[in-house]
């Protein structure tokens, strides 16, 4: 073991780090991140530590107001609202991420191939994108639900499909620009196959805007999923899902408004913190993004 452990030289922050330095200076964004981290922690830990009986209907304890044995009160069936809203946080975040994953899984390859190879495939993708984007996104999701049938998985799939064209168009635009870069031409000149060039050389150059738009879309995605749940398209109404909880709570606004306000407040807090964080990420990664391109969810 003669080799000395030379400490790495302390260089200036590499370009990849700079955005993180800037992000840390954004107070609103960091507040959003802090709140979001708390929500994520609760969503992970909460359902593990909650005793099962909190989710069971208990007709002796219906409509209890917040405070006392149940911190956030109980609902119309006597289920603990804190337990349900925390379980709902897990469902919402996971569904939102899953829907984004669906959009990326379809949108990124379609946009990459269209932008890199051009030609007929590009025309096909762009016509499809044009048609899909001429719908309000929610309508597209409705259409998908009508075909797939109700249920939470189908809601996730529908919402993911509805925002696929956004990512396809985004990646296509970047791929067309990256294609002209010298390092891509060099890879082509060295004899790399088109699929290798697209995946190894073009794709990485297209990812920054995808991350920005992905983070910005997460809030909209969560809201849209909750909206479809609110409209009763999420299947099993007993499942703790914020949209369905809100819809049930609406029936008891006079008697026990907290049944609606608890999931509603949780949803607002989550989406606010996601949006604050998303704005900050967008600013840090791309200072030219002046304002959030807000898209309507529900």
């Amino acid at each position, binding site marked *: 073991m003669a080799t000395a452990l030379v400490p790495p030289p302390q260089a200036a922050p590499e370009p990849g780090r700079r955005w993180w330095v800037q992000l840390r200076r954004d107070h609103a964004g960091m507040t959003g991140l802090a709140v979001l981290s708390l929500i994520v922690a609760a969503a992970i830990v909460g359902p593990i530590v909650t005793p099962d009986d909190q989710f069971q209907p208990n007709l002796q304890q219906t409509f209890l107001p917040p405070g006392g044995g149940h911190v956030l009160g109980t609902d119309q069936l006597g289920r603990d609202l804190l337990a349900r809203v925390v379980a709902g946080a897990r469902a919402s975040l996971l569904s939102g991420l899953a829907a984004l994953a669906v959009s990326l899984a379809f949108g990124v390859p379609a946009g990459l191939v269209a932008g890199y190879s051009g030609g007929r495939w590009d025309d096909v993708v762009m016509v499809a994108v044009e048609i899909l984007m001429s719908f309000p996104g929610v309508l597209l999701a409705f259409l998908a639900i009508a075909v797939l049938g109700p249920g939470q998985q189908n809601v996730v799939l529908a919402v993911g499909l509805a925002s696929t064209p956004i990512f396809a168009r985004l990646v296509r635009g970047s791929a067309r620009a990256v294609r002209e870069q010298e390092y891509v031409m060099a890879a082509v000149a060295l004899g790399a196959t088109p699929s290798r060039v697209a995946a190894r050389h073009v794709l990485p150059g297209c990812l920054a805007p995808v991350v920005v738009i992905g983070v910005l879309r997460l809030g909209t995605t969560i809201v849209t999923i909750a909206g479809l749940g609110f*409209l009763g398209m999420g299947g099993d109404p007993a499942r703790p899902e914020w949209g369905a909880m809100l819809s049930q709570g609406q029936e008891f606004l006079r008697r026990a408004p907290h049944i609606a306000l608890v999931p509603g407040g949780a949803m607002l807090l989550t989406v606010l913190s996601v949006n604050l964080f998303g704005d900050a990420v967008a600013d840090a990664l791309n200072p030219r993004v002046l304002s959030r391109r807000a898209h309507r969810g529900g």
Partner: protein
Amino acid sequence: MVEVLLRRVLRTIPVLLGISALVFVSMRLIPGDPALIYAGDQAPGELVAKIRVDLGLDQPLVSQYVIFLRRAIEGDLGVSIRTGQPVAAELMRRYPLTLLLATAAILFSVAVGLPLGILAAVNRGRWLDKTSVVIALVGVSAPTFLVGIVLQLALAVKLGWLPVTGSTSWLHLVLPAVSLGAFPVANITRLLRTSLLEVFGEDFVRTARAKGLPETLVVVRHALKPALIPAVTIIGLQFGAMLGASVFAEAVFAWPGVGRYLVAAIGYRDYPVVQGAVLLLALTYVVINAAVDVTYGRLDPRVR
């Protein structure tokens, strides 16, 4: 001008064909034989066969689409599976209510969003600006159905100032329109503030200030018009987007528009209604967006 208009109208045609094809194909993707769904499970075989011919289901898919398209253009969208009523007539009964709701919502959002955006820009950095930024952030984050329920709880259930649900008077329009308009208020405020602040940096604004015009006149006479151009685009796009979002306001306040009809139809798997309602809303959306483009061209001398 006429040429611009004509070209824009022509450009909507392939999009509309694409939308109709997508809706048509989606409905065919639904598992199950449409003729059997129409006729009901217990229907005799001859009836199912007759319906199949009536609906043109015995023909190749492309001819089916052409038939569907021709009938749709003639205003025939088939009959509802659940009620047996003609879909087009049912839609036309509800369509004015959805348009009324969306129009009221956009008027509300313009009436609140424009002054708020101007005040925020003029008072940049002061409390009014900061408040408007917070309002805009919450407005962009809160979904229509949540805003709707909170307003319903506060103003209808608790205070009793406005009706809880329904559509029998003008007062019934207030809460759905305000909850639908909350999102565009936030959007318009943010956008107008940003674009006004940009215009304030232009030379002609400095000239106007230098010649001693009162600040109000500088804003109203010089800065506002160029700053409004992007705002008009957003207002138009938001108006279109409301056709999707109105579904949620209609659900919260039991407003009997197209959206509520569509959601119920999805629940009952009443495909002709789903098909007709989606087509109608998408068509309106495309037409509004085309109108926005044309208006934009008239407002912005660079495009004209």
